């Protein structure tokens, strides 16, 4: 139990802060009236109520936990080998991913949302973010370089594909690797000014870089189409056959009646293959000297240099490799939606990708996959939760509050798991065989 005076003080501060924040956002609301004019509505009562709620919550909290959250000292992670079942997690996950379109079919026929929507929003969209997350994971998670402008590489890949396939008539399959390589070159380019910088300065420069890329996309109208963007990007073909409807499609050749889900499922498996490739390449890179140098760079740059590691090329390769995957994601994005515009490459996207990597646990690829699923899938799910209307009244539109709920969820997660969802790090090499629970290597050693 804490001191009442202190608690009152803390609660008063919380209430003031809440009121200060709520006043411009909540207390003043603009609505359009019947003649389409903006009118200002006062809702100071609501702001006061919020402040009162903050006061009460903070007061009770300060009384119960006067010292705030006390984190228990972390016990040495290495002493606890992973549960044996965890070893099957990747295989189970892979099986689920491969079977996803069929699961979607089951969901759809059980009366859920349509199969196209399930595969598109919960399958393809999440996997695009997984691919982006795996790219940023190399730069931020492994090499520890805070890149707040990762979306620039995504944009470069997307516009590169859009231009190559529309203006120059390349096939998607040629545009895809070119997009990756061009994005990687941009990665090298951005890393040049960043090489001599540390921490926060890297964040600022990369942020500015992404903004420059976006502004170029907006203003270079003859090439990029400005705000209107580029449309009619052709969808990928398979061995020269189109996958859509029409006489020269693969389905006509196989004499199967066309259904839109076929093409969508194909796109799903394509982005899944890209994400898996990124996963396995990263896995391999981690056990190579470059990958170890990235992690060493994150841990201590000065120690790296004292061991003869050229930190300039190490940062450069990290940016290039991460940007490559970002470019692939962009290429896929352009081909899948057939349309690119600067609207898709704003700062919010960068923030989303950073959040995925940080929430997942820096450096953990499994974490990236889980965080992408939770964040992208979760916000989509929130849109559809009609049930919340029963709680908050019929005027409640969950889609409007999803960012708020989402932010709240992030704060809670960061308090409970400050190192992210998956905070264990698998060593890139071991001397002893991997310990499992109950194996002799893990039995407590008798004290010497």
């Amino acid at each position, binding site marked *: 139990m804490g001191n009442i005076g202190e608690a009152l003080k803390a609660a008063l501060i919380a209430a003031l802060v809440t009121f200060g924040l709520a006043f411009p956002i909540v207390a003043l609301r603009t609505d359009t009236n019947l003649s389409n004019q903006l009118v200002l509505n006062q809702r100071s009562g609501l702001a006061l109520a919020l402040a009162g709620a903050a006061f009460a919550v903070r007061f009770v909290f300060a009384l119960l936990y006067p010292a705030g959250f006390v984190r228990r000292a972390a016990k*040495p*992670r290495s002493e606890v080998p992973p549960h044996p079942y965890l070893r099957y997690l990747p295989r189970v996950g892979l099986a689920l991913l491969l079977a996803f379109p069929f699961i979607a079919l089951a969901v759809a026929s059980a009366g859920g949302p349509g199969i196209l929507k399930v595969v598109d929003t919960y399958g393809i969209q999440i996997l695009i973010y997984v691919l982006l997350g795996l790219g940023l994971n190399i730069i931020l998670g492994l090499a520890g370089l805070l890149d707040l402008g990762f979306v620039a590489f995504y944009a470069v890949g997307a516009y590169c594909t859009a231009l190559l396939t529309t203006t120059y008539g390349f096939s998607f399959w040629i545009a895809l690797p070119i997009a990756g390589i061009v994005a990687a070159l941009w990665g090298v380019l951005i890393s040049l000014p960043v090489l001599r910088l540390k921490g926060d300065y890297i964040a600022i420069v990369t942020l500015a870089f992404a903004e420059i890329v976006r502004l170029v996309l907006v203003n270079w109208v003859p090439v990029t189409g400005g705000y209107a963007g580029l449309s009619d990007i052709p969808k990928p073909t398979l061995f020269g056959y189109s996958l859509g409807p029409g006489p020269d499609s693969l389905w006509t050749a196989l004499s199967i009646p066309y259904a839109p889900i076929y093409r969508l499922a194909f796109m799903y498996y394509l982005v899944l293959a890209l994400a898996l490739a990124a996963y396995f390449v990263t896995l391999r*890179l981690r056990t190579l000297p*470059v990958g170890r140098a990235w*992690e*060493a760079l*994150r841990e201590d740059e000065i120690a790296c*240099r004292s*061991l003869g590691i050229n930190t300039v090329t190490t940062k450069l390769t990290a940016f290039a490799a991460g940007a490559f995957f970002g470019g692939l994601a962009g290429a896929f994005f352009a081909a899948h939606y057939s349309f690119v515009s600067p609207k898709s490459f704003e700062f919010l996207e960068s923030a989303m990708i950073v959040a995925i990597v940080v929430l997942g646990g820096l450096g953990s690829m499994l974490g990236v996959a889980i965080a992408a699923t939770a964040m992208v899938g979760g916000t989509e799910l929130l849109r559809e939760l009609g049930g919340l209307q029963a709680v908050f009244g019929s005027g409640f539109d969950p889609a409007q509050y999803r960012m708020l709920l989402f932010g709240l969820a992030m704060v809670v997660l960061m308090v409970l798991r400050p190192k992210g969802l998956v905070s264990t790090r698998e*060593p890139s090499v071991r001397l002893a065989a991997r310990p499992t629970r109950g194996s002799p290597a893990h039995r407590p050693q008798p004290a010497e």
Partner: protein
Amino acid sequence: MRWQSEPLLVVDHLSMRFGGLVAVKDLSFQVGRGDITALIGPNGAGKTTVFNCITGFYKATSGRIALAHGAAATPDAVDVLTRSDRRRTYGKNPELFLLERMPDHEIAAQARVARTFQNIRLFPGMTVLENLIVAQHKTLMHASGWSIGGLLGLATYRAAERKALELARAWLEVVGLLDRADHPAGELPYGAQRRLEIARAMCTNPVLLCLDEPAAGLNNRESAELTKLLRGIRAQTGVSILLIEHDMSVVMDISDHVVVIEYGTKIADGTAESVKNDPRVIAAYLGVEDEDLAAADRVNADRAPAEEGRGS
């Protein structure tokens, strides 16, 4: 005297200025091949700054730092290289390096000077073994064909990695950390972290090992073990050792050669015996020894019970 007849490192008129502060002033000394050389002096004398100049972390304001692989360097050969605008010779014996012209990572990779830090700098989140593998970056990078061969899983890379693991295992045995190989380095007790940092430096296969206060924070037993370890390392590999040390018992015990600096200038240079009796050294340095020792003992007494648990 080996530092005169067969110098490995020749520091000439080295000065380092930070704004108005002259941390090192016109300092000259030599390190003999195969010697254990101690650089001592009161706090703030500029010892760490000298290390940072030798290892390229600071660009010296003026002066020359020459290192020779192979035969002993002749002053003529060093002068020829100095007049050219090159950093090093290629394919000569002795192979000469002008360290003040080289960036830090090249000094480590090409001139083969390894170092440890006054405040330990391990890769705390990586395992003990990984710390030693990262130290072999240059060799492994070569073997992996700058990652391309490694990505394709070429056999040459796998063989190189096996050899790197063997070397790491050998060093873990030397420093007594074999049973901790797969633990995060940051979770080791303090003394073990010091030993790991030395092992990591040795994994780069150096000709000169620079240790910045390796015995700082160790208790008496651990200091004694450290002297044994350093002697063993020199006997086994022939590496020359340059160390900064405050603990005079360690210094007098293992040094072949002692260089004393105060306010950035050298005040004595010679064998441990001759330096110990030099009146200027006694005035400048040994005069504060009692206080230092008392302070160190207090620190050791505080930490001993906590750190003892899992030692070597």
